[in-house]
């Protein structure tokens, strides 16, 4: 079927954007081959696209996270006050005319107390929730900033946050309640960079968000196994392994959320080294200080 100019021009954007079926695209292409006018229009569309792509970035930055965070706090507080208003309306019915005045006074007093309490309580709950979330988030920004090629130095940043003990890797497996990734990879010689395990510590978390009895980080509480792995050239990287309920945070460092090897991976590049964090069936793994793509691929392939 031969297309005329009007039909082709209706389809021109869809043709350029690859949204047509093969059959329709072929018909458009056939028309374009013999129509200078439609070909010229398509060329203008393509030049317009190039112009847009060359000038796409805005000159200004989005608002800082702190502004959003403040608005979220204000919003939560406003929600608390709104629920107080509902409370007030719910207390309105009274049994008899005689009781109305007295009950009204009691209701007013109760409402005042509730108003004060309700404004205060959400703030405390919000603060408690924030504290728990904060405790459950392992902030690795100090670890990454101290790394600078030395995992032994980086691990000191964790020592200041959590109680820890030096331990043999086999004992860490036993404490952890299952074989750790590092233990398994060390035995099969599949650690990135042909590394070996230089040091193992366990860190105890004060707060765990796993449902009661379901934490996979050992019977002694929620723990993180931290291993310093050493490459043949003496350089090191750090492997952290713990349950999924412990959220990993990188503070203010720029994070990329990428899909690698079928996994959702958080990736941070700092001082030329890579840090990645991802979930596996049995927990969360974070590796600080990998060298380039090949070590990342080795790590993910061995999961």
């Amino acid at each position, binding site marked *: 079927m031969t297309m005329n100019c009007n039909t082709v*021009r*209706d*389809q*021109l*954007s*869809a043709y350029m*954007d690859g*949204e047509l079926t093969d059959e329709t695209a072929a018909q458009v292409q056939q028309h374009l081959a013999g129509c200078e006018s439609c070909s010229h229009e398509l*060329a*203008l*569309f393509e*030049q*317009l*696209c190039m*112009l*847009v*792509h*060359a*000038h*796409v*970035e*805005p000159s*200004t*930055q*989005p*608002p800082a*996270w702190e*502004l*959003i*965070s403040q*608005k*979220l706090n204000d*919003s939560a507080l406003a929600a608390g006050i709104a629920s107080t208003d509902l409370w007030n309306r719910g207390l309105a019915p009274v049994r008899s005319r005689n009781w109305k005045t007295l009950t009204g006074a009691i209701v007013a007093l109760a409402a005042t107390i509730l108003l004060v309490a309700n404004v205060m309580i959400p703030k405390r709950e919000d603060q408690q*929730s*924030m504290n728990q*979330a*904060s405790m*459950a*988030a392992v902030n690795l920004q100090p670890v990454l900033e101290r790394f600078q090629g030395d995992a032994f130095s980086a691990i000191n940043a964790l020592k200041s946050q959590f109680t820890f003990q030096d331990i043999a890797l086999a004992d860490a497996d036993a404490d952890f309640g299952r074989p750790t990734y590092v233990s398994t990879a060390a035995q099969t010689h599949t650690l990135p960079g042909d590394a070996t395990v230089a040091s193992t510590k366990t860190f105890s978390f004060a707060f765990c968000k796993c449902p009661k009895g379901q934490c996979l980080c050992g019977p002694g509480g929620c723990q993180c196994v931290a291993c310093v792995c050493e490459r043949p050239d003496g350089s090191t990287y750090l492997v952290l392994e713990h349950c*999924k309920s412990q*959220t990993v*945070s990188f503070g203010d460092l*720029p*994070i990329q*959320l*990428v*899909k690698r090897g079928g996994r*959702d*991976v*958080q990736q941070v590049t700092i001082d030329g080294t890579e840090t990645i964090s991802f*979930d596996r069936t049995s927990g969360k793994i974070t590796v600080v200080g990998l060298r380039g793509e090949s070590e990342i691929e080795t790590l993910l392939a061995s999961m």
Partner: protein
Amino acid sequence: MSSKDESIEDDLISLAAVGDRDARRQIYEAFAGRVYRTVQRIVGESDAADVTQDAFVHLFDKLPSFRHESAFTTWLHRLVVNEALQHLRKQGRRVMKTQPLPQQVVAANDRTSIASDLGEMLNLAMERIEPELRLIFQLKEVDKLSYAQIGEIVGIPEGTVGSRLNRARRELRDHLVTLGWEP
């Protein structure tokens, strides 16, 4: 945005939905730039920061109702676009379409000036087309979304996405030529 589509973690969304500040921050940092750019194109630069903030507050408020029936980024985009369009409706204006042409239109024979001002010319031309056309054009050219995704966000059939893109591109081309663009 499609590259982020598959990469945002379900765990992160779940945590953010229950109020985890760190998870919310991570989601914000992953999408703030793109959201801001989308909002900026719809409402203009002066209101973009406020609308972006409101959109994210609204997003985190609505996050518990996210049912994974569409990709997270499509859901996010739809919410952001609605927030921006609602802002326009509140403002009661057809945005910058009525703004006068600037006096310093680039001379068509001054190739150096044209080259250095192409970005500005594009912004002016973008401001002169209908907000709905600008939005669809932006979703396609800047956010690289498919017609199906754009249709879902804007609430129009895929075929209509194509015809509106035709209009957007022709109007933009005409405005750019008026401003001195020599393709």
